[in-house]
């Protein structure tokens, strides 16, 4: 599968400060979350991928196109929703989105049609003839999303899309991101410091710290793997139960107070555990699947690198 983003020893220095340090990675997911504390280099990475900052050493490519040599072509394939306010206050939303579509190369008539569609899609259909300067913060975020998708990009980069949104507006934005992901027509890079946003929308997570990738995680795999980890609290013949489940192909690690951790084998289902427990006359007092939340993954990633959390 062609990587969406491929980084090879990528370093970027701005002034005398090395912001990105020797980043290597290949990301193929439909939705990629970019996480990291403030100053980790998330926005610099995005700016570099868009060709705003020059690469000091190494290389980067988007959808197989080299960022340094084909930045103009890349920008025609990418939609970008910046974090900060970006609009022209005296223009109506539909005129602004149309202009952005035309700048992306759409002929005027198609640009107008797509501008209306994009505004309806994000939920600004009724307000599309209003000047952008009169929009609320939530509406401005939606208008920024509309300009990012109006030209039908192959990759959309969302920089803190839920910044400053109230809970209903945030939910709406997350729903839109999920819907776009599920159409299968585009890849999404979501950069956020809100772990929940990333958890709710992304398949892959890249965690940056001090300009380095400190963790990469495929959330889908993690979720699948988590379902293979079971924590049990038992009453009765624990040793007999352990022998029986190990005989089925599970790995076990006994804990204190009759607690037991199991890694289920490939063909073992939870129903098999119930069956063995019944056969051995063991009470199952508690059974939990392990649930590593993104927060736990994030905190671990922060601790693992020089522990300066």
């Amino acid at each position, binding site marked *: 599968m062609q990587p969406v983003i491929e980084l090879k020893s990528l370093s970027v220095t701005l002034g005398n400060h090395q912001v990105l340090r020797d980043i290597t990675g290949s990301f193929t997911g439909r939705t990629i979350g970019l996480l990291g504390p403030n100053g980790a280099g998330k926005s610099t990475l995005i700016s570099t991928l868009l060709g705003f900052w020059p690469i000091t050493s190494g290389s980067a490519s988007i959808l197989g196109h080299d960022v340094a040599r084909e930045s*103009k072509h890349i920008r025609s394939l990418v939609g970008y929703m910046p974090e900060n306010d970006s609009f022209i*206050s005296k223009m109506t939303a539909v005129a602004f989105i149309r202009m*952005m579509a035309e700048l992306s190369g*759409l002929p005027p008539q198609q640009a107008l049609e797509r501008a209306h569609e994009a505004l309806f899609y994000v939920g600004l*259909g009724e307000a599309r003839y209003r000047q952008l300067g009169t929009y609320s913060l939530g509406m401005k975020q939606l208008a920024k999303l509309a300009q990012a998708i109006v030209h039908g990009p192959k990759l959309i980069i969302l920089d803190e899309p839920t910044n400053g949104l109230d809970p209903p507006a945030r939910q709406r934005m997350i729903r839109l991101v999920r*819907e776009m992901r599920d159409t299968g*027509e585009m890849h999404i890079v979501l950069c956020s410091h809100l772990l929940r946003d990333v958890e709710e929308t992304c398949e892959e997570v890249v965690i940056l710290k001090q300009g380095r990738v400190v963790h990469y995680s495929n959330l889908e795999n993690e979720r699948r793997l988590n379902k293979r980890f079971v924590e049990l609290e038992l009453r009765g013949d624990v040793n007999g139960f352990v022998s029986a489940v190990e005989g089925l192909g599970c790995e076990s690690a006994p804990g204190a107070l009759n607690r037991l951790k199991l890694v289920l084998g490939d063909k073992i289902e939870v129903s098999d555990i119930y069956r063995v427990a019944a056969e051995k006359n063991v009470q199952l007092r508690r059974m939990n699947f392990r649930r590593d939340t993104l927060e736990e993954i994030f905190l671990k990633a922060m601790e693992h690198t020089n522990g300066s959390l």
Partner: protein
Amino acid sequence: MAVYKRTYRGYSGGYTPDWSRFLVLFRYSRRNLFKSKFLTAFFVLCFFFPLLCILGVYANDHLSAFGFSGLRDGPFFKINGNFFLIFLSAQSSLAFILTAFIGPGLVSPDLANGALTLYLCRPLSRIEYVLGKLSVLAIVLSWVTWIPGLAVFVVEASLAGWTWTLNNLWIATGIVLGSWIWILSISLLALALSAWVKWRIAAGALLLAVLFLGAGFAQAVNHTLQTTQGYLIDVSKLINIVWQDLFHDSGDRAMPVGEAWFGLLAFAAICLYLLMKKIRANEVVR
């Protein structure tokens, strides 16, 4: 797809050529330009003098038709380089006022609202952005300077015949070249100021200040240091010297034409440098 379906879909239609993208900026900026009634009225007023000149040229060649044959033998005035130098000086003053109105509003709103990121994250380079904004001024000012200038020339050429036309083709070159020197110099200055001063009124005032205070400083430097090199900071003087040369004017030059050209090129380079410093998708926060 009908808008009411509200589902996302990709785009599979055609694209405009790469080279034409900067014209999008021109179209949208122009559309906003003439929303101002005052500006539209002033723009129309800019054609008054050229119209008067065309009538004058026509009347000059048809004195007898107006019953003035007894007054004098030849025409009232000569249509030569000097005539067009005066014409261009008058029209360039009007062009300058237009620039002071239009120029400051071209780049500053984009900077004030952080819109540059959105322009430059598309297949549009910084140079194309500047070209797009510059084309707004260039095209509006063209309608006030070299286009009416050539119209007057063509009227005179049609009345005076081929011999006059062939002998005076250098005047047409002077009109076009002289106008473009003025247009580019003043447009670059306006864009550079618009990029650095986000408040439109202040940017407009600064444009006037650069031109008039520049002239004042130039005089002060010349008097203090007993030199003519002070004119290097007086853009209007530099342009005037180049125009004098283009229109074969026999009057005194304040400085050699080569130095004036050098001064203008340096001025344009400084404006471009200032402009490109500001036209960036992201600002580096140090």
